[in-house]
Every structure is written in structure tokens, then in C-alpha cells.
């Protein structure tokens, strides 16, 4: 289990991974709070690592037949967006990704 407090640098990285735009004051506010929480949950490292018993049969192997049902109309699909053009959603340009 990773010991040591979480740093503002790490919080900045996490926020970026989570697409949260944090201001510097926010980073400073959140860092000790997150540190306390991570520290608290870290107590699980004390639990002995014995293999847990195999759970009773739960729901498994669920699937559905390959058949088509009506879709939303494009009006309905696009209707809640504040950024559409003709029948497309619009966003500012992104650099090519995967």
C-alpha cells in the first residue's frame, strides 16, 4: 500500500486524468482532504491476504437476442445538447487520438 501523503502535484495529475479543471486554490483545498481519506482507506493493507471463499452462484452469463428495436429520433437524441449543427453534435476541434 502506497504510504506517504498525496501531494498537490499528484492531485493536479489526478484532476487532469479525471478532466476536472481545478484552480490552484482548489488544489490546495482538496489536497489535505484527499490525503486524509486515502490515508484512512489505506488501513485495508492490514487485512490478511487469505483467499476469500468462492461466493455463491450470483447472476452470470447474461445476454440478449440479436434483434433491432426502434432508436431515438435524431431530434430527441440531439435535443438536449446546447451544441449541435444540422444532425451532428459539435465540439471544438480535438487533436487526433486513437
Amino acid at each position, binding site marked *: 500500500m502506497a504510504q506517504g501523503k498525496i501531494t498537490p502535484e499528484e492531485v493536479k495529475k489526478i484532476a487532469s486524468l479525471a478532466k476536472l479543471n481545478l484552480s490552484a486554490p482548489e488544489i490546495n483545498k482538496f489536497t489535505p482532504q484527499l490525503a486524509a481519506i486515502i490515508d484512512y482507506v489505506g488501513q485495508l493493507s492490514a487485512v490478511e491476504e487469505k483467499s476469500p471463499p468462492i461466493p455463491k452462484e450470483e447472476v*452470470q452469463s447474461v445476454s440478449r437476442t*440479436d434483434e433491432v428495436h426502434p432508436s431515438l429520433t435524431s431530434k430527441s*437524441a440531439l435535443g438536449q445538447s446546447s451544441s449541435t*449543427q444540422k444532425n451532428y*453534435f459539435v465540439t471544438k476541434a480535438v487533436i487526433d487520438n486513437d
Partner: protein
Amino acid sequence: MPETTPIIGLEVHVELTTDSKMFCACSADHFGKEPNSQTCPVCLGLPGALPVPNQKAIEATLKLGLALNCCVNLQSHFDRKQYFYPDLPKGYQISQYQHPFCSEGQIILDSGKIIRVERVHLEEDTGKLQHTVESGKKISLIDFNRSGVPLVEIVSYPDIESAAEAKEYLKKIHQIIRAVGVSTADMEKGQMRLEPTVNVQINDETGSHFTPLVEIKNINSFNFAATAIDYEISRQVEQFSKDKKEKTASNKQTRGFDNNRKTTFVQRQKEEAKDYRYFPEPDIPPFVFEVSLIASIKACLPELPENKIQSLVSLGVESKYAKILYTDKSVTDILYHFAKNMPDVNIGKLASFIANKKIRVEGDVYIQYQALTRQRINDQSELEKFIDTVISDNHRAVTDYQNGKTNALGFLIGQVIKVSQCQADPQTVSRLLLEKLGLGQ
């Protein structure tokens, strides 16, 4: 001169041919449809919407994996692959990471070399982004019709060592996909997408070195794949000679392929190793497959191209012709029929005639074969037997000729040819006929 060995891995994405999408009942037939006309809460990533897997897509994945000689993992599940991108409505893609449906398969190249397949797994496709400019600003238009379409990912180990091998591997995969019937794999429609990963091992006086890994995107044909790989190999060797940079855990690069210049180019300046934060998909219960199900799928697999080709070869067809002809059932039916029922026909020759278009399969194949392979009857007495038969069977024609109708001779020659099964030489027959007719009845 340093010794260089290319190391190539291939990742192939195949759009399965199903009626509905992977996790919802929207139509999966998205090509050319009005934008955003085939979406629902699930594939549009609306709040509260939950994924329910498509049975046919799962079976197709198992079929394909088995056809590629994989083991099916009897316990499997979906995972969430998390990243942000406008064409990914949930902010994660439902895919498979730790326990894919199928793993550890192989493709055998003609040379006998084995290319190992690491995994065959199932995931959902993303929406489509279109880049354009509006009022001077660069924008992206997004269409989610393709979002959620089932996609099988086939990943090879980096066992491939040349562009030619890569091309052969891709062709074989393509054939198998179509033979098993899980996808039409039409490259032009983007139903089969290719991503080679290339690096080079360079052995010189200072030891063994590996160039940084490069993943090449935006390739839409096998030929382009080969071109891109060849270009990339040379580029990497040259690059290494200049900067001696070696492969590390974090310097993998993504490059695009330029069809026009036939070169690769850097897609992103600075690349960080992606953290996809995979974890098991909690909205979809895990899968447990019975061994009997796997056995029944395997038993029902259609005959695969390799097998069909081999069977023809064992009939006597040359390998190069077998590879062309095996796809045409009307041809293979003929070859098998003749092999079984006509011992005098040389199957190898017949196949080559058909392949070279010297025989039309719609016509009488046997006669065409004979015409091409006929041996002349040299024994005059045999010929005379045929002629006598024709004369005695065709009084009318004989009489006509004797009464001055010269056309009747042509008719009689034709009859002799027919009766002799084309083995009689027309000129010899003509001479002999005239002799006999001249002698009179």
C-alpha cells in the same frame, strides 16, 4: 554493416455483422445513414442507461477465436477502458482486458512459420468524428450511429518479421473472418481496420539494440500496410543511426500513414503513457462457458480456407491454382465430381484449364477437357470401323452425297468425329470416307 531484424505486431479490428449493436438494440448497420438517427440512451451514454450484451456477437467472437486456433477462456468478463474523447459517450469503452474471450491462437504462413495470436476479444466501437472548419474555427462534428457497434479485436504477438509476412497474415485473417461468416470485413467501409506496431532489432559492434515502438494508424488496405511497414523499418534504422535512441517503457510513438506520400508522420508531439484505469465492468455479470458449448461451436465451424485449399491439393490441384479456385463452389464441385467419377481425367490439368479460363464451367466441361487433351487415333483400322458405322447408320446422307450433294460429306465427317469422341483427325477421316464412298455401296 549492422544486422537489422524487424519486429512487427498486428492489431486488427473487425466490425461484426450483427443486426443490433453490442450493448443495445439499435441497428448496427450504420454505414451511410443519417447522422445520429440510430442511437438510444445506451449507445448515446445518457444518464442511467445500462449495457446488455449481444448474444450473437459473443458467439461470433468465440467462433472466430476457435477458427484462429485459440483457447476459449471458460471464465471471462468485460472491463471498462477509461479515457475522455468526444466520440466516446460514456467516457469509457466497454472492452476486455484481463480475461478476454479467446487467447493463444495462431496463423500458419505458407512458409510454415507460425504467427501467434495473443488474444481475440470483444468490445464496442466509438462514434465518428469529422473535422471541419466553420467561420474560421476548427470544429469536430460527431455522429454516434457507429457508437456501440460490436468490434472484435485480434492481436498478434510481434512474431512478424517483414511487410510481406504482415500482408500474408492479414490476408489469411481476412479469409478466415469471411469463411466463418462473422463479418463481411469490407475494407472500404472500414469494417476491418489495421494497426501495425513496428520496431527493429539492430545488432552492431556495441551489442543488440531495439528501436522505440511505433504504432501506425490510418491504414486502410493490406498493400498500404505493407508499404507503411517497409517505410517505417527504413526510417527507424536511419533514425537509430543518427540518435541511438532505444525503446523504453514510455517512449512508444503513434504515427499516421500518408497514402499519397507513402510515408508515416508523427501524430502527436508529446506522448504520455496512457492510464486507462481498467476495472471489471460492474453492469455486466461475468461469463461462464460450458465446455460442451465450446465443443458444439467448434464442431459447427465451416471448413476453413486452409483446409479447403489442402483438400484440393490432395486431389492433384497445384497449390497456386487451389488458392484461387477454392472460393468458387461451382468449380470445386466439378473438381470433386471428376475426381470421383472420371478416372481418366487429370484433375491437375483440369484445374489449370479452369483457372486459366481455357474451360468455361457453364458449358460441357468434359468435352472441353477432351478437346484440349485429345489424342489422335493413329490406327487406320480403328478409324475405318468408325467410318463403316457412320456409313451404315446414315443411308440418306450417303445417297445424297452420291447424288451430288457435296455438303453431305461434311455432315458425314462430323458424325465420324463425334462417334470417335473427337479423337479422329478430320482430314484423315475425309480421305478415308471419300475412298469408301467412291467404292460405292
